[in-house]
C-alpha cells in the first residue's frame, strides 16, 4: 500500500488550480469609473474623435487615467466618480448628438491578464445597481390588428373585382366573407382560393360563407415578428439612453427582458423605452429647386428635410401614408441576386398608396423616419420633453402604380438591411407593457456586495477553524481543498461568459463552503473507522477514500439535480444561486476527492507510519 499518485495526476491538480487562480485574479483589481463613447449611425470613432475628447477634458481640467480606442468605442478611464460625471458632460458638449456618451465601470484588469482573456465576474443588477424590466407584448392585440388589416384588404379587393358581398367581418383569427348570391359565392371562392399566403380558405356553400383562417404557421410567424420587432425598437431606444452594457433578450413566447445596469432614473428610462417612432411616405418636390430652398426660399406646401448620408431634400408636405399601415418589411433578393426591401401594407394603406402613386409614376418618393428623442428638460408638470427628429432615409423612383405589396430596389445590401430595420421600427407596433420591474440603487448594490463578501469571509474562516480543531493535520488538508474550491468557483464563474454573480449567488457560495467539506468529512470519518478496525494507516487512507467515493458521488448528484431544476425554472437572481451551487458542487468534488488525495499522498504516502493525525 503505497498511496502514491503518478506525476501527471499531481501536475493536473496543480495545473487546474493555477488556471482557475489566473482567471479568478481579475476580480481583485476592482473597477475604474469610466466614460464610454460610441458613435451613432451618422458618425465614426477614430483618432480625431480621440483628440477632440482629449482637448475637451483638458478644457475642464480633468486628467484621464487612460483613453483607449477599441472595437469602435472610446473608453476614457478616470480617477474618481466626480470626474466621471464632469467628463461625461464635457464630452457630450463637445461631440454633440452624433455620439452616445455613457457612464460605465471599466474593469481595471491589467493588460497581461486581458490578453489571456481573463475578465472579472459579471455582477447582477442587485449587486451593481440598475433596472430590470420584463415587458409583455399584447399578442391578442397584435394579431387582431393583422386580421383587421386583412379584412380591409379583402374588402378592397372584392370591390375591385366587382364581387358583391353582404359582409366581411373578423371572427377571432378568421375573416368571414358573406356573399350575396351563388354566382358571387363561386366567383369569390375562385378568387380567394390561394390568394393570400398564410390563410386557409374554408368553404361553406350552404350559407354562402367563405372563411379565411390564419394558419398556425402564420400565427407563429406573427408572434415571432411582434417580438423581434419590439426587440429592434428597444435596442434603438436603449442606445438613446447611453447605457454601457444593456441586455435585451427574448423570454418565452411573448416577453422581453431589458436590463440596464447603472441606470438610476427609471422614470426617464421608462419614458424613453415607451417613446414612439413613426414613418411617413412623401413625394419629393421636383417642381422647385432644392438649392433655392437651402438658401431659405422654401416654397409653400413643401418642406426642406435633412437626409441621412446625403444632401437635404425638398419634400411635399402632404403625407401619402404613415408607418402604422406597414405590416411587414424585410430584405429580399431579386432574380439577379440584388438586394431589395419588400414592404407589405395593410388594406387601407394599400388603397392610399395605390391612389397616390397612380398619377406619379416616374416621380421620386421619399421615406421619412421620425423619432421622438427625450431631452433632459421637463415641463411644469414634470413630464419629460421630447424633440421631434425627422430625416429622410430613402428616396426611390416609383416604377409603377403601387399596391399593398411593393419593393424598394437599387439599394446596397447593408442599406437594405438598415432600411428594413427602420421601416419595421416605424411600423405598426404590437402594444407592449411593463409587467415586472426591479430597480436597485447604487448604495444598496454596494451594500449587498459588502454583506455578501463578509458572509463568505466569516463563513469560510469559521469552517476552516472548525476543521483544523476537529481533524488536525487532515483538517489542514481539507482546508487547502476548501480554499482551492473557492478559487475554482470564482475562476469558473469568471470564465463562463453568461454567468452573473447575484446576491443569492453569493449565498450559494457561502452554502457551498459549508457543504463542500462534507466530502472530506465522509472520507476522514471512514479513515478513522478503518483505523479503529486495526488497519495500518496506509491501508486506512486507501480504503477511506475508496469506500467513501460512491457515497460522495450519489449524494452530490442528487444535490446537482436540485440545482439544475432551480436553474431551469428560476428567474434572474435565483438562477444566480443555482449557478454557484452547481459549479460549487462540481468543483468541490474535484478538490475534495482528487485534490486532498494528492496532498495526502505526497505528505503521508509511501512512508511507514504508526499513526495518523486525524
Amino acid at each position, binding site marked *: 500500500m503505497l498511496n502514491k499518485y503518478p506525476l501527471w495526476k499531481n501536475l493536473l491538480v496543480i495545473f487546474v488550480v493555477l488556471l482557475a487562480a489566473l482567471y479568478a485574479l481579475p476580480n481583485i483589481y476592482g473597477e475604474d469609473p469610466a466614460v464610454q463613447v460610441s458613435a451613432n449611425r451618422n458618425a465614426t470613432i477614430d483618432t480625431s474623435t480621440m483628440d477632440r475628447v482629449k482637448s475637451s477634458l483638458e478644457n475642464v481640467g480633468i486628467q484621464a487615467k487612460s483613453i483607449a480606442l477599441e472595437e469602435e468605442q472610446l473608453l476614457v478611464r478616470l480617477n474618481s466618480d466626480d470626474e466621471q460625471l464632469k467628463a461625461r458632460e464635457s464630452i457630450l458638449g463637445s461631440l454633440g448628438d452624433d455620439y452616445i456618451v455613457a457612464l460605465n465601470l471599466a474593469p481595471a484588469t491589467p493588460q497581461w491578464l486581458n490578453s489571456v482573456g481573463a475578465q472579472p465576474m459579471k455582477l447582477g443588477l442587485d449587486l451593481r445597481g440598475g433596472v430590470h424590466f420584463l415587458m409583455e407584448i399584447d399578442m391578442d392585440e397584435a394579431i387582431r390588428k393583422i386580421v383587421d388589416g386583412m379584412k380591409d384588404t379583402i374588402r378592397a379587393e372584392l370591390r375591385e373585382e366587382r364581387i358583391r358581398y353582404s359582409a366581411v367581418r373578423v371572427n377571432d383569427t378568421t375573416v368571414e366573407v358573406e356573399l350575396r348570391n351563388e354566382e358571387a359565392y363561386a366567383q369569390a371562392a375562385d378568387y380567394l382560393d390561394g390568394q393570400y399566403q398564410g390563410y386557409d380558405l374554408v368553404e361553406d356553400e350552404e350559407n354562402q360563407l367563405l372563411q379565411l383562417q390564419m394558419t398556425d404557421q402564420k400565427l407563429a410567424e406573427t408572434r415571432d415578428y411582434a417580438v423581434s420587432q419590439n426587440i429592434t425598437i428597444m435596442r434603438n431606444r436603449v442606445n438613446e439612453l447611453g447605457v454601457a452594457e444593456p441586455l435585451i433578450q427574448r423570454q418565452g413566447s411573448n416577453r422581453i427582458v431589458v436590463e440596464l445596469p447603472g441606470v438610476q432614473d427609471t422614470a426617464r428610462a421608462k419614458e424613453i423605452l415607451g417613446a414612439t417612432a413613426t414613418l411617413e411616405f412623401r413625394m419629393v418636390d421636383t417642381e422647385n429647386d432644392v438649392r433655392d430652398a437651402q438658401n431659405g426660399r422654401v416654397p409653400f406646401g413643401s418642406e426642406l428635410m435633412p437626409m441621412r448620408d446625403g444632401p437635404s431634400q425638398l419634400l411635399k408636405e402632404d403625407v401619402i401614408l404613415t408607418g402604422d399601415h406597414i405590416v411587414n418589411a424585410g430584405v429580399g433578393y431579386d432574380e439577379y441576386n440584388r438586394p431589395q426591401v419588400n414592404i407589405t401594407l395593410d388594406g387601407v394603406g394599400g388603397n392610399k398608396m395605390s391612389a397616390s402613386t397612380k398619377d406619379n409614376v416616374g416621380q421620386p418618393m421619399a421615406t421619412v423616419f421620425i423619432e421622438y428623442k427625450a431631452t433632459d428638460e421637463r415641463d411644469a408638470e414634470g413630464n419629460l420633453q421630447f424633440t421631434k427628429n425627422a430625416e429622410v432615409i430613402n428616396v426611390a423612383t416609383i416604377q409603377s402604380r403601387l399596391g399593398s405589396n411593393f419593393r424598394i430596389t437599387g439599394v446596397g445590401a447593408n442599406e437594405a438591411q438598415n432600411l428594413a430595420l427602420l421601416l419595421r421600427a416605424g411600423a405598426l407596433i404590437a402594444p407592449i407593457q411593463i409587467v415586472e420591474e426591479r430597480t436597485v440603487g447604487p448604495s444598496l448594490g454596494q451594500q449587498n456586495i459588502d454583506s455578501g463578501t463578509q458572509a463568505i469571509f466569516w463563513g469560510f474562516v469559521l469552517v476552516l477553524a472548525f476543521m483544523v480543531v476537529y481533524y488536525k493535520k487532515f483538517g489542514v488538508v481539507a482546508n487547502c481543498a476548501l480554499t482551492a474550491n473557492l478559487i475554482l468557483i470564482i475562476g469558473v464563474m469568471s470564465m463562463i461568459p453568461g454567468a452573473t454573480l447575484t446576491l443569492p449567488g453569493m*449565498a450559494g457560495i457561502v452554502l457551498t463552503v459549508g457543504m463542500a467539506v462534507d466530502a472530506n468529512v465522509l472520507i476522514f470519518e471512514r479513515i478513522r473507522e478503518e483505523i479503529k478496525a486495526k488497519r495500518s494507516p496506509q491501508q486506512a487512507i486507501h480504503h477511506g477514500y475508496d469506500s467513501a467515493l460512491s457515497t460522495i458521488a450519489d449524494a452530490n448528484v442528487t444535490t446537482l439535480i436540485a440545482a439544475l431544476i*432551480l436553474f431551469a425554472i428560476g428567474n434572474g437572481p435565483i438562477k444566480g444561486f443555482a449557478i454557484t451551487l452547481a459549479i460549487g458542487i462540481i468543483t468541490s468534488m474535484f478538490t475534495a476527492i482528487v485534490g486532498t488525495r494528492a496532498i495526502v499522498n505526497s505528505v503521508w504516502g509511501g512512508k511507514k507510519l504508526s499513526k495518523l493525525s486525524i
Partner: protein
Amino acid sequence: MRDIINTDERLPFMRFRGVMGIISALLVVASIVSLSVNKLNFGLDFTGGTLLEVGFEKPADLSRVRGALDKKGFGDAVVQNYGTQEDILIRLEPRQGVKAEQLGTNILESLRTEFAQTVEMRRIEFVGPNVGDEFIEQGGLAMLTALICILLYIAMRFEWRLAVGAVAALGHDVILTLGLFSILGLEFDLTVLAALLAVIGYSINDTVVVCDRIRETFRKFAKLTPVQTANRALTDTLRRTLVTSLTSILVLLTLFFLGGPLIHGFATALLFGVVIGTYSSIYIASSVALAFGVSREDLMPPEVEKEGADQDPLP
C-alpha cells in the same frame, strides 16, 4: 471481504422510531393546518404589487410618511422600517386604473416634496399580478419536478423502499419548513423558494449517505436484523451527519447575521431546513424504509455471471 460479525446494537436509534414518528406526524399535521388556516405570507414576487425601499438621512418618521402617502391617495400602503431606523419599506397592493409601473416614481416624488431632506431610492420592485401567479405555478412545478427526479434517481441507484423513505423525508422537511413560515408569518418570496429547493438538495444529500450505509451494512453483516442494521448504519454515520450539519449551520449563521436583510428569509429557511433535514435523514428515511419491510435480500447486488462481481473489489 472481512467478516467481523458484530451484533453490538450500538445506539438504539430505532427504539424511538415510534415516538419520533408520532412527533413528526403531529408536526406535519400542525404545519398543514397552519398552511390552510393562516396560509403563507406571500411576498411581492407572488402577490404582485409595488415595493419601495427608501433611505432617509435621519431616522424616518413612519407616521409622517404614512400621512404623506395618504394625501396622495396611497392610504393602503404598508410602511415599515427595514434593517435600520433610516430605511423604510413601502408596500402597495396591485391596483386598478393606475399605471402600475409609474407608482414607484410617484411615491418617491411625493416623499421628496414632503421631506425637504434627500430621500434616497434604494430599491423599487413592481410585479404584475399575472407574473406573480406564474411564479407560484413555476415554484410548485419546480418543487414537484425536483422531488420526482430525485425519487427516480434513488430508486435507480438503490431500491424503491429506500427511495420512498428518502422522498418521505424530503416531503417532511418541505412541509415543516413551509409550516414554520406559515406559523411565524414570515414573508415567503422567491429567495425562500430557492432556499426550500436547497433544503431538498441538502436533505437528500444527508439521506443518501444514510441509505448508502444501510445498504452496505445489510450486505456486510448477514446476521443482523433490519432494525439492528439501521441502528448500526446510523451510528456509523452519526459523526459525519453532525459534523456536516454543524459546518453548514456555521455558514448559515454568518449568512443570517451578516448577509443583510435581503437574504434573511433565505437564511432562515435553510437554517431550519438543515436542522430538520438532519433529523429526518436519521429518523424518517430509515423508519419508512423499515416500515415498508426493507430486507437484506432487497439490497444484495443483482446476480451477474462474471465471477466475483458480487464481492467488494479487493483492496
